[in-house]
């Protein structure tokens, strides 16, 4: 039933050993609430032990932040871990015995939290790489049919309610690992899996650059996701995206008249 812990960071999780070492302090110090209360915060101490107090994991570890992310996105990820579309043994075991209704409640709880985030870690890559990352995130690469991150994840990159996640406030190792996992199909979403298609058009340098740039961006206050998708910039070639886990993407493109 259980395979070796050492195995589940797939080959794409290259930054994991260092990231785990960094995360130790994070997990160990997280249990700070002194008294028992019958609250959803108390019920989810198992989550915040790693994802940080109030789900506010800092970008110096490995774990993604939860606080303020779109509820639909968080809910889908919990289902994806439980139903085998995302693979991380600890998360799978955690959510395995939980119902849809409870997972939705947990997702909504973390989504509704509006907490300030610390400043990001300064980037440790050459300026040219950072510049490349910014270009990919803001303009994309029309020639290689890679859309800009902002096209779907919002101009402020804090995501779009209810289903599209924010990309800022996440550790670089985590971003690297996720893009790698999309490329190798380790990470999946409901079909059509738009993010897998996009990640597969990126090469290793693209991933390094965009992860470094994203991880160096501050989380704006408030960190709330946008309520509507931005209009797609013409540089993407007007490609129409269909995302099984974010039906709003296609609807918005239909409204703005993007042709396939």
């Amino acid at each position: 039933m259980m395979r070796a812990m050492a195995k589940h960071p797939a080959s794409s999780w290259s930054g994991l050993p260092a990231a785990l070492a960094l995360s130790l302090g994070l997990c160990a110090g997280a249990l700070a609430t002194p008294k028992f209360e019958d609250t959803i915060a108390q019920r989810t101490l198992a989550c915040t032990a790693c994802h940080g107090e109030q789900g506010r994991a800092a970008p110096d570890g490995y774990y993604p932040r939860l606080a303020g992310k779109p509820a639909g996105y968080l809910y889908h990820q919990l289902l994806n871990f439980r139903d085998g579309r995302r693979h991380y043994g600890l998360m799978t075991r955690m959510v395995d015995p939980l119902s849809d209704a409870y997972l939705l409640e947990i997702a909504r709880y973390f989504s509704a939290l509006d907490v300030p985030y610390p400043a990001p870690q300064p980037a440790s890559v050459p300026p040219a790489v950072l510049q490349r990352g910014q270009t990919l995130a803001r303009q994309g690469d029309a020639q290689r049919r890679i859309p800009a991150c902002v096209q779907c994840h919002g101009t402020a990159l804090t995501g779009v309610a209810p289903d599209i996640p924010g990309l800022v406030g996440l550790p670089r190792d985590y971003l690297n690992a996720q893009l790698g996992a999309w490329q190798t199909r380790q990470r999946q979403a409901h079909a059509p899996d738009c993010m897998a298609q996009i990640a597969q058009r990126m090469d290793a340098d693209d991933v390094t650059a965009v992860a470094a740039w994203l991880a160096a961006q501050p989380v704006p206050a408030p960190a709330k996701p946008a309520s509507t998708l931005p209009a797609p910039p013409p540089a993407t070639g007007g490609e129409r995206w269909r995302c099984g886990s974010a039906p709003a993407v296609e609807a918005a493109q239909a409204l703005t008249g993007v042709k396939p």
Partner: protein
Amino acid sequence: MKRGVRLLAILAVLLVAAGALVWHHNFNDGVDVLAPAPAMAPAEKTARVERGAYLARAGNCAACHTTRGGTPYAGGRAIETPFGTVYGSNLTPDPATGIGRWNAAEFWRALHHGRSKDGRLLSPAFPYTSTTQVTRADADALFAYLQSLPPVVQSNHPSALRWPYNTQAALAAWRTLYFRPGASSGGPADPARSAEWNRGAYLVHGLGHCAGCHTPRNALGATDNSADLAGGLIPMQNWYAPALNRASEAGVADWPLADIVQLLKTGQSPRGQVTGPMAEVVQHSTQHLSDADLGAMAIYLKSLPPAGEAAKPAPAAVGTIKLGRGAKLYENHCAQCHGDQGEGVAGAYPALAGNRAVTMAQATNLVQTVLHGGFAPATAGNPRPYGMPPYVLVLNDADVAAVLSHLRTSWGHAAGEVTELDVNRVRASTGDGR
């Protein structure tokens, strides 16, 4: 020379006789798979399908016959055994890949005699050693339910058992040693006992297949009938299914009936809560059973003849440095929820003081719990369970051994030490969900 020939002849006769015996035992079950099914009124058919749906829950068939995130009963889940991997088969009525071409008699023969549609012997990873107790009427209801499901086209994954376990000859020999078909009548197991007791025995030993985990297995994977429900290490998972007939483990002889029912219904009770593989059983199976059936199971479990508690030598004293380290770790990581004195919080965090799960000789479940944490199962009776964080990335083997040794020697406990090796064995063998 003459003597040698005679010996050879005797040997040959013996071999033929043994072969005939093995053949007779395995293939002469007398089930007429060509007999036409009796006609049935539509209302009767609907009731039978509903009954079958309930029985499928009682047997938790979906657990092995569904892959993670897959369509229920369409098969595909890998089940690792000490002899290789087998895969749950497609039970939906697709004619080509499921059981759409089976009839009720063939299905009954599978449950009762462990044989497939084509007559092949089935691997006992499919627990027909238990389902052989299921009555023909219940088997027919289960079959009717499965046939009512939407057909799913999903080919069965061939099993990957090692030689010789993948041969029919090995299965025939194994079955001759360890498999006896149950009574076809499905009548009461003990007419001197109450109907409830018999119903409980039927559910526990039949569809419930509790023995699959709670009865120890021998080197060939057969459950030991002389040690029925006496506790067993679940192969490949490193969880220990505690003895149901032992006061020091999970025996319920002195529990109020209502507490046993509550545990099976909600996953929680004033006397303990379920963890690990049993959480899955409660979530997908027992929480869906009627109070009457849970009560019957409770009556039966309470009546199990208690196993004698072996006089244990006093465990060796644990070093004070290790215990000091364990106490400090407990204060830092555990006391906030489980309390300074291991008293827990009723309904949320189990008490550790006086908890049999803490003091049981087998400590593997404790190690699993500390390493991986987790939630109690979400059930109708406990829909929003509390969770425990995983410590697999926080505490090293020595830390886990120290804090568990502290638990097992505090608050009047006199259970044995947990060693780094005990922790490492679990850490090395466990990982992602399934």
